């Protein structure tokens, strides 16, 4: 009996239900999608016709999740254009550099401390450097902080971070996925990947007039089909040059983000992003065997502490650079703590390249903790600041009195 559609239906029902519950509890939905994916899977029971093992459908759910990454990153590209980043100002660029630098360094530190090989260390660096745009944007809106002056800085820094991660992923895929062994061939693959990205973006920018003209399509059906064609062809073609398909999708988004039709494209893609994106987090959870996570707890705890510390530092620096109050600067650092989609994409690359399995477990725990802790730190940052200010006042009082 073919139960494929029914199984996918159950998966979607589970995702929806957890989403509704976490929204009711006012939590970010992403960690819950992963958790529910982990809760079911091959080790789960089968109740009547409801097969929670998802054996028949796992391949399809995985494919839908793969589409989810494409849509998530394509959408991100539409929103985060390079010209917007250039316009955002020097303070954000410098702050972003400090942010990326500190987080990357803490990844290197962790890799060195855990005695990981080079490839694994670089994957860990990527996992630890990538803030979750989806979670941060949602938390800022939910907490009604969009009017605050530090919000521009936060989103600007995230934009910088995402573009850095895109380049990091492209280098990493050369290193991890191409199968190249010698240092020279790795370098060659990575450089050609980078060259492809840069050329694509430059040519895309030059051709935007023609793309605009080609997209002057009244019928929304044909418009959508054209956009999808561009997205899938570019993403798929990128893979042949060892540029992850996700990065191909991001690049296509960056190019189309400069188009006159950008907001129409965003509008049409958003439902796909929401649906397949949710399935992506679920399918990621599905691939995790919960019992294997125990071994990565120590490493994760260290990583979480390192991340919070380096985010605090980067937030303070970025805040000071743009003349923010210490309170707003603390907001910047703590808001950026959330980790999510990019960290998971990074872990998936590690998995595809056959790296140590413990990296995967580490990524799961790390993302789960910070996807929950990040929004909490964001929310409580004013309270933490007031405690800190009180403490300082008392210390000062003791010194003088």
């Amino acid at each position, binding site marked *: 009996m073919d139960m494929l559609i029914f199984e996918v239906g159950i998966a979607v029902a589970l995702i929806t239900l957890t989403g509704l519950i976490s929204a009711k509890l006012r939590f970010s939905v992403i960690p819950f999608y992963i958790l529910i994916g982990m809760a079911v899977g091959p080790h789960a029971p089968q109740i009547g016709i409801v097969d929670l093992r998802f054996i028949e459908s796992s391949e399809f759910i995985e494919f839908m999740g793969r589409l989810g990454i494409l849509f998530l990153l394509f959408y*991100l590209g539409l*929103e*985060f254009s390079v010209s*917007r980043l250039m*316009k*955002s100002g020097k303070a954000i660029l410098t702050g972003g550099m400090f942010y990326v630098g500190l987080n990357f360094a803490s990844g290197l530190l962790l890799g060195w401390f855990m005695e990981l090989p080079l490839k694994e260390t670089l994957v860990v660096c990527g996992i630890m450097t990538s803030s979750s*745009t989806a979670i*941060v*944007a949602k938390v*800022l*809106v939910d907490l*009604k902080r*969009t*009017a*605050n*002056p530090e*919000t*521009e800085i936060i*989103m*600007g820094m*995230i*934009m910088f971070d995402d573009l850095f991660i895109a380049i990091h992923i492209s280098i990493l895929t050369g290193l991890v996925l191409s199968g190249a062994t010698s240092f020279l061939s790795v370098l060659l693959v990575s450089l050609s990947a980078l060259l492809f990205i840069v050329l694509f973006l430059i040519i895309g920018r030059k051709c935007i007039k023609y793309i605009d003209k080609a997209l002057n399509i009244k019928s929304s059906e044909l418009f959508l089909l054209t956009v999808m064609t561009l997205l899938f062809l570019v993403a798929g073609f990128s893979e042949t040059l060892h540029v992850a398909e996700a990065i191909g999708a991001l690049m296509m988004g960056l190019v189309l983000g400069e188009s006159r039709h950008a907001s129409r494209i*965003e509008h049409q893609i*958003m439902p796909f992003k929401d649906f397949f994106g949710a399935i992506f987090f679920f399918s990621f959870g599905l691939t995790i065997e919960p019992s294997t996570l125990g071994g990565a707890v120590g490493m994760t705890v260290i990583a979480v502490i390192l991340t919070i510390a380096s985010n605090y530092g980067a937030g303070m620096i970025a805040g000071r650079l743009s003349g923010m*109050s210490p309170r707003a600067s603390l907001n910047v650092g703590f808001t950026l703590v959330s980790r999510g989609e990019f960290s998971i994409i990074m872990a998936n690359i590690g998995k595809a390249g056959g790296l140590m399995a413990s990296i995967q477990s580490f990524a799961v725990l790390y993302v789960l903790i910070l996807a929950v802790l990040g929004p909490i730190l964001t929310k409580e940052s004013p309270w933490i600041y007031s405690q800190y200010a009180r403490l300082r006042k008392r210390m000062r009082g003791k010194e003088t009195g």
Partner: protein
Amino acid sequence: MHFKETDLPGIGRKYWLHTRSGEHLVIVIHNDERRDLFHMESGDSPEELGDMVSLVTLDDDEARAVAAIVGGMTYKPTFQDEREVMLEGLLIEWLRIEPHSESIGRTIGELNIRQATGAVILAVVEKNRTKQFNPGPDYIFTAGATVVVAGERDQIKLLKQLLSNGRL
């Protein structure tokens, strides 16, 4: 007057106005068309933003309606429905002559509008948008025309009845 505009990538676009009366108004237009209107306190200096005083969230429809009211545009009739303006008992209304109205083909004098209802007809805008101000007693009503009338609420109610039934 100076609006400071900034992008909030991933969220939308932000407009910040420091008003002449010294208050801060921040408008965020979300990518999903929602509008947030923040009234913010001043920070350490009057030009700086402080904490939020209040927030109103509007959806697309509401935002458009508010924009029209704030911009003073709702006083312009849209020729589709009646709009009314009230000035201390005096009411100005835009009435449409419906296609089945009994007054079509008859004149203002014939219907004896001023004497019968007390309301006056200030102007008429025909379906083809030609305007006629202060039409005389020999003006003939046509289908689809919009009549601008003034009077008290009761008088206008009578006039509506007269226009649609041809009698009171």
